[in-house]
Structure formats: structure tokens, C-alpha cells
């Protein structure tokens, strides 16, 4: 069985199933030895687990703090109730229901699916809004939009009396109609499916690309990731799961009212997610267990059966909410990544099996001499920042089999030029061509897919992902967009960058030299036609810079990419470049071989401000 399939499908499934059995087993035992109250508690816990798993799919993978998921739950809950409540009951509660809904009579299963579907459709619309607002991790606009959803749904539910019977009464199933949960069979099934869905989504292409965008939106785009697409898919799946959980909640309770899916429940579920670790699927479950246990404990302590006079001032009703708020606050201050961080049980197994596995030989690149030279052509680019002209008619050509250097004093416009080529900055004039294709006006991720991949002056790795995952994700992002270009094996790149020992280390833990090497490997994984490197040796000593020359040559040769490198270390530039452009104050003041440039007095003057030496 291919290693990839084992890692990404079998092990996660195994881990999930194990966790599931532990959770369900523990719950069943607890319910069996307890009374009816503990039975009800376990049921609630399992249902909450479904909801929280749904939330994890979105919040965990995209990093966008959504307050609206319970709002989606409300939509699903009401849709479910309206569909599943018998027409006789409906006639009594909402006789004037619009669209002839009072006649609808579906089985609970059908109602559940219909409800989830409706919620997903609404989610699609909201998702479009989120995309348009540029949602990403930490974005306030996204939080506001989702908060608005929660609020609006609540208000509609309270006021649209014909449909929902309003806020005071709500809708309810007949207690004698036989429409009860009847054991936890459905819940077990829903939980299993939710768990599998969440765990596997994390490993799919969409999940992983969403995680990359979560880690660093800009870096992800520069690799060809379109964050909005991944976020939308995560949203739709997560809303589906949350909706199923919501319908179960309504089913178990036997009624619904607007308060059931509003701030309190949002607080509860969010705290569960945060405490366990929002980037971990099993973490979501752990959070559910911890908070449920803690809440129950506080409820017990604050209840009538406990009488500790000394602690009386603490053990009062309302202690549960204090516990919830304190948990959220405490974790944010002391352990923002939750109990588990982003750990999953199968990671443990994967680490162990890693040592014993035999590495297969990585695939080598095809030898292709017939490929004609390509050109990256920048023509007369002008960039204005307000009144300041950063680039004044700059032209540059790089071919696919050379290394072109871009040097110049501070503020000359070098990074601006790279930013313009990769569409982070819009030029006022000029054009950029890749062979026959015009790149003007394309968004960053499409330029990356066309084959121009860059690194950043301030290192932008995906911090929470491992070395191997950083490279894998880049490869994944480019796969399908390479236009026939050969994509190097992840294994090959890991070895070529000398990062074999560190492959499972998180990118945030790497020392600088290794981090730069990873950056290079990651860029190469995207099968670029041109590598734009922004100060790859900054902060490096002489020896490391020297090594960097070899590494870049090696990697560029591997993927047969042309290189444009910006740097200040002229020793490095001289060693690696075939041709060099010198930029000063937004203009190209010299072009030539490194030797020609270093003799050029004009260049010297630009750097030093004037001629220096005894013959002055």
C-alpha cells in the first residue's frame, strides 16, 4: 500500500476509530452506572461533540473565528422541527405557516437531511460574502459577518411568528407521538460520521491548503493557493455537520426556541473547541469531555447536595458560567493552542513507523534537452506610491536557464519590483510577460500557477506545519496547474535541502539557515519556471552564503527554473549570477556580468555615495 495512502487515510481513520470507541465506550459505561440524569448528560455530550466537530472543520482549518455556526444550527434546527413535527401538531402551533409548510410531513431522517441542506445553501451565500470581505485568520470583518448571522437568525426566529411560533413559545414535538430519540443509535452514527469527516478533511487537499492559508495567507497565495475556495469547501462541510448536530439536539430536547441556539450555546461550543485545541479533531472531543465534566462538577458543587460553608461564596448557581468564561480566558492567556494543540493520535503511530520504514528512491527529473529557452520579460514598469515614484521605467529580462541578480542600495526598489511581478503591487505602467503570456492584472495565486514562485525578505514559512508538510503543501497547491512541468518529489527536495533529520520538525522551530533552505525547497516544490528569491542570504555568514550558492544552483537545476535573486551580499551575487541588474532610486543604472558591475564606478558611487580610494 502506498505510503501516502497509509499516512493520509488509513492511520487517521484508525486513530479516529480508536478515539471514537474510547469516547463512546466511556460514555456508555458512565451512563450505565449512573442514573437517568447521567444518561441524559452523556446524550448531550455526544450531541455537542457532533456540533463542535463541525465547528472544528471550519475554525480549525481556516483559522477564521466564526461566531455564526450556531446560527446555522438554528436554521437547521427550525427547518428540522418544521419538517418533522406532525401536521396535526403544526396545525396547532403554526397554522399560518407560509409556503404551505404546515402540510409537510417528513420522517426525522429526511427532515434532518433537508434541514442540513438548507443550512448549507445559506452557508454558501454567507461564504460568498466572507470571500468578498477577504476572510482570513484573525480577520475582524469575518467575525462580524458571522456574528451578524447569529443575531439575524435569532431575531427572525423571534419575530416570524407564523413560521416559528415566536420567541416565547417556540415549537415542540408531541411528547406522546413516538418521535423520540429512542436510544442513542442515531447519535452514535452521526458522531462517527462527523469524526471521520473532520479527521479526513484535515488530510484532504482542501483542508491542507486551507491550513496553509491559515498559517500565512500571503505565502499561500504566492504558491498558487486560492484561499477563498478552500474556505468555502470547509464552510459547507462544517455547516453540514453542525446542522446534523443541531437537529439531533432539537430531536433530543423535543422542542426548539430561539434561545437554544444563541450566545450561550455559542459560548459553550466555542469554549469546548478552544480548550481542546482548535487545530485538532481529537482535541475538539477532548474539549467536549473536559468542559462537560467541568460543567457538571460545578453544577454539582453549586447544587443543594453540597454544603461546604467555607466555600459557600464560590459554590453558588452561576458557577458553571463562571467556569466556562474562566476556561476560555485562562486558556487564551496560558495555552492559546488548547490542550492538544494540533496533535492527532495517529501522529504518534506515524512517528513510530517512520523509523522503521524503508525509503524508496525518489524519482529523478526527466532529462529534457529539447525544451526551448523561455523568457520572463519585464518592460518599462512604473510604480507610484502616492506621490513617490518607486520604479521609474524598469525593464528586466531573465531566461529560464540563467541566474539574474538584482542589486542596489537600500530603497532602490528591488523588493518593489518583485512585488510588482507577483502582483502584490499594481504598476501604473509597463507590462510583464512570461514567454507569450501576459501576466498584467492577474491575481497573485494565478501568477504563481503560471510558474512564478517567490520567497520573501521576512521569512514566511507555515509555522505550525512541519518541514515536510511545508513542502508537501506547496507541491499540492501547484499540482494540476503545472502545465506539464515536472514536479519534484517531496523526498527529493527534503534530501536536496539537507533537511532529512528535521523533516518532522515544525517550521517555527527551525534555526535561520535551515529555515531559508526550507523556503527554497518549498518554492521548488511548486514546479516553478522562475524562482524569485528575495534576500536569501540575509543574516547569513560567509560560509553559509557560499553554501547557498550551491543549493540554489542545485534546486534551480532540478526544476529547470530561471532565477532572479535580490541580495545585498555582493560576494554571493558574484558567485551565483550570470547577469546582474543594478537598481538605484527606481531606475536601472547598470546591467552586466558580475565582474563588469563590480568594476563599474557608477555602481560604486551609488553604493558609497562617491568615489573612494587614493586616486580620488
Amino acid at each position, binding site marked *: 500500500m502506498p505510503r501516502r495512502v497509509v499516512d493520509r487515510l488509513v492511520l487517521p481513520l484508525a486513530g479516529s476509530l480508536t478515539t471514537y470507541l474510547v469516547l463512546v465506550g466511556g460514555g456508555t459505561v458512565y451512563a450505565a452506572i449512573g442514573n437517568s440524569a447521567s444518561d441524559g448528560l452523556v446524550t448531550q455530550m455526544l450531541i455537542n461533540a457532533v456540533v463542535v466537530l463541525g465547528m472544528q472543520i471550519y475554525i480549525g482549518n481556516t*483559522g477564521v*473565528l466564526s461566531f455564526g455556526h450556531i446560527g446555522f444550527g438554528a436554521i437547521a434546527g427550525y427547518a428540522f422541527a418544521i419538517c418533522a413535527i406532525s401536521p396535526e401538531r403544526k396545525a396547532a402551533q403554526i397554522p399560518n405557516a407560509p409556503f404551505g409548510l404546515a402540510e409537510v410531513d417528513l420522517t426525522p431522517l429526511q427532515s434532518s437531511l433537508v434541514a442540513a441542506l438548507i443550512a448549507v445553501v445559506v452557508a454558501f451565500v454567507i461564504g460568498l*460574502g*466572507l470571500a*468578498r*470581505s*477577504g476572510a482570513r*485568520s*484573525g*480577520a*475582524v*470583518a469575518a*467575525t*462580524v*459577518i458571522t*456574528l*451578524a*448571522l447569529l*443575531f*439575524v437568525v*435569532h*431575531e*427572525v426566529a*423571534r*419575530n416570524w411568528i407564523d413560521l416559528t411560533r415566536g420567541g416565547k413559545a417556540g415549537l415542540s414535538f408531541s411528547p406522546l407521538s413516538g418521535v423520540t430519540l429512542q436510544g442513542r443509535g442515531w447519535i452514535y452514527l452521526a458522531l462517527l460520521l462527523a469524526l471521520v469527516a473532520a479527521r479526513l478533511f484535515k488530510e484532504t487537499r482542501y483542508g491542507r491548503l486551507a491550513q496553509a492559508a491559515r498559517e500565512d495567507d*500571503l505565502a499561500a497565495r504566492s504558491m498558487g493557493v486560492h484561499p477563498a475556495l478552500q474556505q468555502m469547501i470547509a464552510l459547507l462541510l462544517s455547516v453540514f455537520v453542525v446542522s446534523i448536530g443541531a437537529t439531533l439536539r432539537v430531536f433530543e430536547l423535543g422542542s426548539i426556541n430561539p434561545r437554544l441556539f444563541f*450566545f450561550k450555546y455559542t*459560548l459553550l461550543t*466555542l469554549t469546548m473547541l*478552544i480548550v481542546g485545541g482548535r487545530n485538532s479533531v481529537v482535541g475538539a472531543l477532548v474539549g467536549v469531555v473536559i468542559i462537560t465534566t467541568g460543567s457538571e462538577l460545578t453544577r454539582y458543587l453549586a447544587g443543594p447536595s453540597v454544603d461546604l460553608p467555607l466555600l459557600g461564596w464560590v459554590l*453558588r*448557581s*452561576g*458557577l*458553571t*458560567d*463562571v467556569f*466556562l*468564561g*474562566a476556561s*476560555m*480566558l*485562562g486558556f*487564551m*492567556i496560558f495555552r*492559546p493552542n488548547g490542550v492538544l494543540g494540533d496533535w492527532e493520535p495517529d501522529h504518534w503511530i506515524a512517528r513510530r513507523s517512520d523509523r522503521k520504514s524503508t525509503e524508496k528512491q525518489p524519482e529523478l527529473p526527466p532529462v529534457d534537452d529539447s525544451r526551448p529557452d523561455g523568457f520572463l520579460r519585464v518592460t518599462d514598469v512604473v510604480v507610484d506610491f502616492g506621490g513617490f515614484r518607486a520604479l521609474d521605467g524598469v525593464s528586466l529580462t531573465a531566461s529560464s536557464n540563467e541566474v539574474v541578480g538584482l542589486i542596489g542600495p537600500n530603497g532602490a526598489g528591488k*523588493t518593489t519590483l518583485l*512585488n510588482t511581478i507577483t502582483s*502584490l503591487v499594481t504598476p501604473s505602467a509597463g507590462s510583464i510577460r512570461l514567454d507569450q503570456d501576459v501576466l498584467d492584472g492577474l491575481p497573485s495565486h494565478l501568477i504563481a500557477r503560471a510558474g512564478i514562485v517567490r520567497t*520573501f*525578505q*521576512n521569512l514566511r514559512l507555515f509555522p505550525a506545519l512541519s518541514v515536510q508538510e511545508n513542502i508537501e503543501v506547496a507541491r499540492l497547491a501547484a499540482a494540476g496547474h503545472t502545465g506539464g512541468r515536472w514536479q519534484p518529489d517531496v523526498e527529493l527536495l527534503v534530501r536536496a535541502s539537507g533537511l532529512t533529520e528535521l523533516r518532522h520538525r515544525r517550521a517555527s522551530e527551525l534555526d535561520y539557515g535551515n529555515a531559508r533552505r526550507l523556503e527554497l525547497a518549498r518554492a521548488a516544490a511548486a514546479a516553478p519556471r522562475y524562482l524569485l528569491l528575495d534576500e536569501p542570504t540575509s543574516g547569513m555568514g560567509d560560509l553559509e552564503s557560499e553554501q547557498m550558492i550551491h543549493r540554489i544552483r542545485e534546486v534551480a537545476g532540478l526544476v529547470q527554473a530561471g532565477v532572479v535573486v535580490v541580495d545585498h551580499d555582493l560576494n554571493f551575487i558574484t558567485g551565483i549570477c550570470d547577469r546582474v541588474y543594478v537598481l538605484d532610486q527606481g531606475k536601472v543604472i547598470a546591467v552586466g556580468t558580475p565582474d563588469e558591475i563590480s568594476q563599474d564606478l557608477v555602481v560604486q558611487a551609488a553604493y558609497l555615495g562617491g568615489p573612494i580610494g587614493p586616486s580620488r
Partner: protein
Amino acid sequence: MTELLQQVVDGFGRGGIYALIALGIAVIFGVMHLVNFAHGELITVSAYAAYGLFAAGWDWWLIAPAIVLIAGLTSVAIEFVAFRWVRGAPDFTMLMTSFGVHFLVQAAFVMYVSANFRQFPRPGWIFQTWRVGGVSLEVFDLLVILFTLLTLAATYWVLQRTMFGMSLRAAAEDFDAARLMGIRSDRIIRGAFALSGLLAGVAAVFWLMRSGQAGPSAGLSPMLKGVLAALIGGLGSLTGAVMGGVILGMAEVLLISRLPEGLVGLTDGIVFLLIALLFVFRPQGLVTVRRAERV
């Protein structure tokens, strides 16, 4: 025509309160990059303080300034206990922290006071109306507008004419450069919270005069409105926050008066919806604040 005028005054009256809250939120965001969802707790605390002081026999004339002071002190206390630890943390963490504080304080009130709302007397004169040239204006609205303008003027004076205000604005723009000038980060942040608290206190006085009740969620609604107003204006812009507050107040009044009978209860929902739409198309708010990201 007269009706429109009444509504405009009404709108400013509401908007004034929102503007004060929004300004407080914008001030904190400016220095700490934090959207303070716990801001509403200041109003809740004020509500309970009002209730308690009434029970002790105090009068509105004394209670009003007391509330303003209490709100200011509470704000500084919250910074000291909670936000101090998360300075410089990623945005997600800070957002959740402020929600955590919000829920915690609310829960503490439920626990130690009561889950129910307590009533306290509202000054009778606020609901009187004056007839000015054929238009009926509520004394209360006029007073709110007056005091809001006074408070904004005072705030403006503090920000523009005092060293503290200048330091605050400098720190909000470039925290490190401000430190280079000799401005102490601790003091500035605490000062920002104090200012923000005082503003909330003034807003609370009028909010409570109208609502006449104290409960654990007393601060929720005004806080949301304030946050929305600050966001409309574009976080970080102080003038934007004030603008946002006025716009919000106006929108509410106009909606309430123009909506058909059955939909009036949805006013809040519609306002929220409009704001969400604003954020879809203009996520940076109405007033753009310079903040470039170095690549």
C-alpha cells in the same frame, strides 16, 4: 417635516450614546490592536452600581458622576487583570480573550447578584417634551446630544491639547517610535483603558436613565452597537468611530419609523444585516486608516 426633525434629533440622541461607546473601543484598538468585546461589562457594572447607590438612597445627580468614575476604574482593573497578559498576541487570541472576559464578568454577576433584572427609578423629567416651533423634542434626547457633544469636546481637548492625548495618538500610530520618545508603554495602555472607561461611563449614564434596569446582560446590547459603530467607521479611526455611532443611531431610528408594523422587532436584525453587507464590500470600514504591511 416636523416628524423628520424629531427623528433626526432622536437619531442623534441614540447615535450620541453609540458614538461614545464606539470611541472608547476605537481608542483601545488604536494602541493595542484589540477589539474589546468586554467593553459592555463596564455598562453592566455601572448598572449594578446605580442600582446599589439607589438602594443606598443616592440621587441621580450624585449617581451620574459616580458611575462615570466607576466605569473608568473598572476599565483599568480589567486591563490589569486580563488584557495585560495578552499584549502582542495574535488577533485571534485577543478576540477570544475579550469574549472570555465578557462572559466571565457576566457570569460573575449572575452568580453574585442575580440573574434577574433589577429595576431602579428613572428621572421623571427625561420623558418630558419641549415644543419648539411646532416640533416635539424629548428633553432626554436633547440632554444626550448636549452631553455627548460636551464629552466629545472634552475628549478632543484631551487628545489634542494634553501631552497624554498626544502621547496616546503617537503610540496608536507607532508604538515603538513612541517608546523612543520616552513614552512608557504601561502608562499609555492603562491611560487608554481609563479614557475608554470614562467614555463608557458617560454613555452608561444615559443608557441606564432610559432603561432603568440592571442585569447581567445590561451591557450586551450597547456593547454590540458600539463595536459595530466603531467597525463601521473603520477600526483605529477615532473620527470614524464617532461617525459610525451617529450613522448607527440614525439608521435605527429611521428603520423603526419606516418599517411596517410586523417587522419593527427586526430592527436590530436589519441593522446587523446592513452592517454585515458593509463588511462584505468594505471590510476596512468607512474611514481608511493607513496601515501598510511590509512584505
